[in-house]
């Protein structure tokens, strides 16, 4: 969007001052963690506000050579990928008839997903724990955590995707139908590729939510199966004396989410706005 240049609403020195303060407060804790990881515990104790002097690489080296860290990262990645694929596939399949078919129970069906937004995982957490560990015997597995997470990601996914699918041009699908293509074929070969931008958006949202999730993994995963947030939390309590080590561990755990955010910034932002409008 081309904005017309006016002299109006430009920043004065005060605006820049406020902006600088905001940046300092926002990034301060993140930088404290990252720089703290480059210091020794002795440096941190002597002067908490100081810069690394000398720069210590031991803490970070300790984290990246720690097999537990890679184990947690692998678990987080696997769980987030399964969650994302299941939520996006089931979500776009459900959104498709809600966008394209006319049938009596269409709006009530959509309402089921809208109402789903009101059920936080916290409400169902204890029965979910029993269901997954005892009834399904999926406790401490990737699928055991990914399936409930996908189910709780579905409402957002459907609510964002339905208007997106509605906005896609119908002509291509109608032409394919005239050529005798089946509905399922049309969905698979035409609707799905056309809705790729929307799928990426909801996929990124589901991935980030899973990557950052804590409550459900806390109840369902132990030992080798823990994800990064659990690993970070446990590491910080188990090594509470080793502040520098904790900061290094936490900082490295931040990197994947930050990189994903920087790469997908537009998608995340438009997805959140879509969720708000929907």
């Amino acid at each position, binding site marked *: 969007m081309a904005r017309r240049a006016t002299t109006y609403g430009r920043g004065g020195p005060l605006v820049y001052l406020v902006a600088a303060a905001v940046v300092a407060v926002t990034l301060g804790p993140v930088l404290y963690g990252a720089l703290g990881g480059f210091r020794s515990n002795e440096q941190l104790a002597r002067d908490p506000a100081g810069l690394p002097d000398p720069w210590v690489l031991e803490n970070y080296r300790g984290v990246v050579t720690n097999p537990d860290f890679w184990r947690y990262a692998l678990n987080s990645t696997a769980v987030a990928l399964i969650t994302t694929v299941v939520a996006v596939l089931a979500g776009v399949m*459900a959104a498709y*008839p809600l966008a394209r078919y*006319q049938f009596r129970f269409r709006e009530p069906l959509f309402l089921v997903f809208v109402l789903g937004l009101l059920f936080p995982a916290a409400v*169902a957490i204890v029965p979910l724990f*029993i269901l997954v560990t005892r009834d399904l015997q999926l406790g401490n597995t990737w699928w055991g955590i990914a399936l409930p997470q996908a189910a709780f990601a579905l409402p957002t996914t459907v609510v964002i995707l339905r208007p997106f699918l509605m906005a896609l041009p119908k002509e291509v699908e*109608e032409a394919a139908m005239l*050529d005798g293509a089946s509905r399922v074929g049309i969905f698979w070969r035409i609707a799905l590729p056309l809705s790729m931008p929307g799928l990426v958006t909801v996929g990124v949202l589901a991935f980030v939510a899973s990557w950052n999730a804590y409550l459900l993994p806390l109840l369902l995963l132990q030992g080798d199966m823990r994800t990064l947030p659990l690993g970070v939390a446990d590491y910080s309590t188990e090594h509470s004396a080793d502040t520098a080590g904790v900061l290094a561990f936490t900082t490295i755990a931040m990197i994947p*989410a*930050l990189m994903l955010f920087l790469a997908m910034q537009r998608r995340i932002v438009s997805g959140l706005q879509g969720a708000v409008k929907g």
Partner: protein
Amino acid sequence: MTSQGAVTAADPGAAVTRRASARRVTGRTPGGTGRPGRDRGRKRLEILFFVAPALALMAVFVVYPVFSAARMSFYRWKGFGPMVDFVGLQNYARVLADDVFTDAVVHNFVIVFASILVQLPLGLALALLLNRRIRGRGLLRTIIFVPYVLAEVIAGVVWFQLLQPRSGLLETMLTSVGVPVPEQGFLGTPDLALATVFVVLTWKYLGLAVLLFLAGLQGVPDELSEAAQLDGASWWQTQRRIAIPLLAPTIRTWVFLSMIGSLQLFDMVWILTGGGPANATTTMATYLVSQGTQRSNFGIAGAASVVLFLIGFALAVAYQFLVLRRDTKDA
């Protein structure tokens, strides 16, 4: 379904032509209700095929556990053997009489209102500021959103280190400029712990508010503020009279999201304080998790879950009726 198959097998062209002409006549979208009966069965199967995976997932992992929590709330059950000890509303009576739980409800509502009273004006101010044509605006927007992307746990662990009594950075900085710090640290002092958690939450979630408000401001046409400017309105007047009123729907939606999020608060509290000190920062979610998983009081946890859901639901419905309805009516 079989008859449809027979028709297609005998003369595939005819079925397609008929379908196309039916659509032309009724002028409906593909899959419209105007098709003859035998198509209808097929359409139902297709709809079922498309929605089945999602509905099955929701049924198993959302609906069943929610009902199961409700059922659990009427039994005394420690998690072993069948659920037989029916106690009626006794669990609810115990939960509602438990000071820890009622305090937790109060804490949730403190966070709900504090978020609106603090984060809304702050977020609005920052959005208006970042909407100005200043240097590095894009970078600023990215930076302000960074805390939102981090996991609550990871942000919590860093803040936990920052807030360490005596040795932490925050206390060191405050002491060096002569500000007195509490003996037990900010998270260790019952009167300050909840406020401290709220400050960290504000740091974490302000970016979302700013981002949404900025997006809403993009929808405010330049012409309006330019016209106002020609009429001699100051920058502040155009914001107050034009931008903020036009932003109202976005603000109302943000308030809704913020309320729901505040009622479900768990991760940050669990990491920073675990609900302590002396239950000063418990929330409904930390209460039901500690009752359910640490003490195996499943009935109590179930009752707390139902109360949490009812409060959230009542708030959502009330807000929908009182506030959000205006937006849908306008649309």
